[in-house]
C-alpha cells in the first residue's frame, strides 16, 4: 500500500546540509530553520556563551567520534542518570540556581508606543476572516453540475428521470442578515462586531448585508431585518451561556423559535459564539461555530453543512 512520506525530520536536515553546505557550519542553522527546526543544540566544544542568539545545530556525529566518559560511581538509592536533588527546608534561602535569574528587559507590546493601547486584535485573523465568512454564508444552490453518477445509475436501472440529478453546489448567499447580540454577556466582544460586519460586507457585497442588534429576543431582530428564501442569517451571540445572562437570555426557547422561523422561510442560520462548548439541545437545532482565533474553515463548513 502506498503511503504518504513521513513528515520532515532530522534526516531531511542532514541530507540538505550534506548536499548544500557540508563545510559551512554557519549555514546549518539556516538550513534547519528552512525545514522548520528551531535548533538549540550547541556545537561540541563550543561554550554556550559564545553562541550568538541564533540557533545552532550540531553536525551529524559519526559513531567513531563518540567517546564515552567513564561512568560515575552510582550511589545506592540514587537514580541511574539523574543526580539526587536536595530541596531547601522551609525558611532556608532557595539555592542559587533558583535565585540568580536575570529579569528580562521590559518591552512594551508592539503598537503600544507612546502609551497608546495596543491595536485591537480581531477574534478572527484578518487574513482568514474572508474565508471563514464565505464558509458561514454559503447557501446550497439548485444549479450545481449534473450528478453523472446518479444519472448513469438511473439509466442503468432503466429508471425514468423527471428531473436532472445535480450535485450539491454552494455559493455565497445574495442576501445576508447579521444579528448582533448586545446583551451583557457580549460586552467584551462589542468592538469585534464592527470589523466582522465590515468583512461580511466585503465578502457578500455591501448591499446584500443587513444588520440588526438585539438584547434577549433574536426573533424580533430577524423580523425587523426580514428573512426570505435563500437568506443566510448569521448571529453573533453568547447564547446566554455566561454568568451575566438574564433569565430570558438563558432560555433556549428563544433560539428554537428563531431556528423555526428561519427554517420556515427556507433560509439558513449560523450562530457565531465565543464559547467553545454548548448544550446539546442547542447544537441539535443550530449551526454553531466558535468565534475565536483558533476557528478553522473546515469547522465552519462542517457546522454549516451538518444543518444544510
Amino acid at each position, binding site marked *: 500500500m502506498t*503511503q504518504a*512520506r513521513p513528515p520532515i525530520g532530522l534526516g531531511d536536515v542532514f541530507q540538505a546540509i550534506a*548536499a548544500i553546505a557540508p563545510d559551512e557550519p554557519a549555514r546549518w542553522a539556516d538550513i534547519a530553520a528552512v525545514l522548520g527546526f528551531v535548533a538549540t543544540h550547541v556545537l561540541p566544544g563550543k561554550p554556550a556563551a559564545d553562541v550568538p542568539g541564533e540557533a545552532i545545530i550540531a553536525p551529524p556525529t559519526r559513531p567513531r567520534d563518540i567517546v564515552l566518559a567513564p561512568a560515575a560511581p552510582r550511589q545506592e538509592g540514587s537514580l541511574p542518570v539523574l543526580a539526587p536533588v536536595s530541596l531547601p527546608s522551609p525558611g532556608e534561602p532557595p539555592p542559587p540556581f533558583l535565585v540568580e535569574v536575570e529579569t528580562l528587559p521590559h518591552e512594551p507590546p508592539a503598537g503600544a508606543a507612546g502609551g497608546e493601547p495596543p491595536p485591537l486584535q480581531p477574534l478572527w485573523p484578518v487574513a482568514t476572516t474572508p*474565508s471563514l465568512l464565505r464558509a458561514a454564508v454559503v447557501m446550497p444552490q439548485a444549479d450545481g453540475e449534473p450528478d453523472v453518477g446518479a444519472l448513469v445509475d438511473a439509466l442503468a436501472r432503466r429508471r425514468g428521470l423527471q428531473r436532472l440529478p445535480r450535485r450539491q453546489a454552494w455559493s455565497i448567499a445574495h442576501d445576508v442578515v447579521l444579528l448582533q447580540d448586545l446583551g451583557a454577556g457580549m460586552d467584551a466582544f462589542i468592538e469585534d462586531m464592527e470589523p466582522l460586519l465590515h468583512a461580511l460586507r466585503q465578502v457578500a457585497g455591501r448591499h446584500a448585508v443587513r444588520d440588526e442588534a438585539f438584547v434577549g429576543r433574536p426573533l424580533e431582530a430577524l423580523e425587523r431585518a426580514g428573512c426570505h428564501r435563500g437568506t443566510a442569517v448569521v448571529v453573533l451571540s453568547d447564547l446566554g451561556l455566561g454568568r451575566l445572562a438574564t433569565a430570558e437570555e438563558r432560555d433556549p426557547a428563544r433560539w428554537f423559535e428563531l431556528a423555526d422561523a428561519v427554517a420556515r422561510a427556507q433560509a439558513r442560520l449560523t450562530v457565531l459564539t465565543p464559547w467553545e462548548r454548548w448544550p446539546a439541545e442547542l447544537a441539535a437545532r443550530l449551526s454553531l461555530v466558535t468565534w475565536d482565533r483558533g476557528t478553522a474553515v473546515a469547522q465552519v*463548513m462542517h457546522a454549516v453543512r451538518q444543518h444544510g
Partner: protein
Amino acid sequence: MKDKPLTQQPMTVAEVLQQLDAQRDLMPEPAAPGVHERATGDVRDGAVYLMDDPLLLAVKVAVTTGRPLLLTGDPGTGKSSLAAWLAARLGWRYYEHVVTGRTEANDLLWQFDTVRKLGDASGHGELADSDYVQPGVLWWAVDREGARRRGVGLQRDVQAAAAGRSEAAEPQADVNATRSPHHAVVLIDEIDKADPDVPNALLVPLGSGRFTVRETQAVVAPAAAAPAPGRGGRARGKAPGQQAAPGMLVVITSNGERVLPPAFLRRCVVHHLDAPDPARLEAIAAAHALLEGRKPDRKELARVKQLAQQSVQLREEFARADRKGSGTAEFLDAVRASRELGIGPDQQEHWDQLVSLTLRKGAARP
C-alpha cells in the same frame, strides 16, 4: 531568454544546485524584437526573476530533500512566477494548476469525462475507458509517456483494458518539447482556495508519485528509468549531491486565506516571501527593460523610482487598513503605462490618475 539545453540524462542534486547558483545572478538576455515587448506584468514565462539568498536556500533545500516548496506571502511578491523561472533555468518541464474553491484533489491527478462517455455510448460499440481519462498536472510530471497514453498499459490487468484510441494533449506542450524528460516543476497555485480536504488528499501522490486511476485501474508511478518524484535516487554509496535530483519539484503557493492542515505543512519546506522594497522594485523594472532590449533613459529611471516609492507607500497605507496593496505586477503595469503614455511625475494630474488606475485601483484612500 533561452532555456537551458535539453539533457537526456537525469540531473544529479549537485548539478541542480550548481545550475541554481550559476543562473540566479544572470540578468535576462535581450530578447528578439517583439518577443517580450507586449508581455504585461503578471506573465509566467519564466524569463525574469530576481531571487534573494533566503529564497535560493529554500529552493535548494526543497530540491535536496525532495519536499514540496510552499511559498506564502501577499499577492504580488513573486510566489507564482518562481516555478516557471526555475523550470526555464533548469531546463525542466513546467506544469501549473490554479486552484479554486471547486478544485478537488483528483483534478491534479486525473479527470474522467463521464458525460462525454455517456454521449458516445449511444453511437459506438465498445468504448475504451482510457479515452475519457484526462491526466492532471501531477500525472504529467510523474510519468509523461503514461499520461500521453492516458494510462493505457498501466492497468493492473492489461488484458482486460481496451486499447485507447487517442493520445492526451500535454499542457504547455510547446514549452516542454525541448525540456528534460526526466524532471519537471509543478506549480500548484493558491492552494488555500481549495477545500481543506484537498491538501491532505495530496499527501500520498506528492510524497510517492503513485496513485491509481479509479475508472481504469491504471497505476501511475514514476517511470522505471526516472528518479522518484519526491526523492532522488538513493544516496547510499554515493557522495552527497551525487544522487539523482527529484523527478518533480512541486512549488505550492498560498495567500494565507486559510490555515493549511498541519499534516500537510509538516511535509513541506515553507518559505515566506516579503513584499519587495523600492530598490528591489527598481531592479525588477530594470531586468524587464533589459529583457525587452531597452536601455532606460534618465527620465524613465526617475519615473520608475517614483513609482516604486509610491507603490510601497500605498502598500503600507493599505496594510494599516488591513487591506491588500498592489504587487509587483501592478507596479510593472504602472511603469509600462507611464513609459508608453509619456506620463511623468511633473504632470501631476495625469500622474495621480495613472497611480490611481494601476496601483490604487481607483480605491479611495484607506
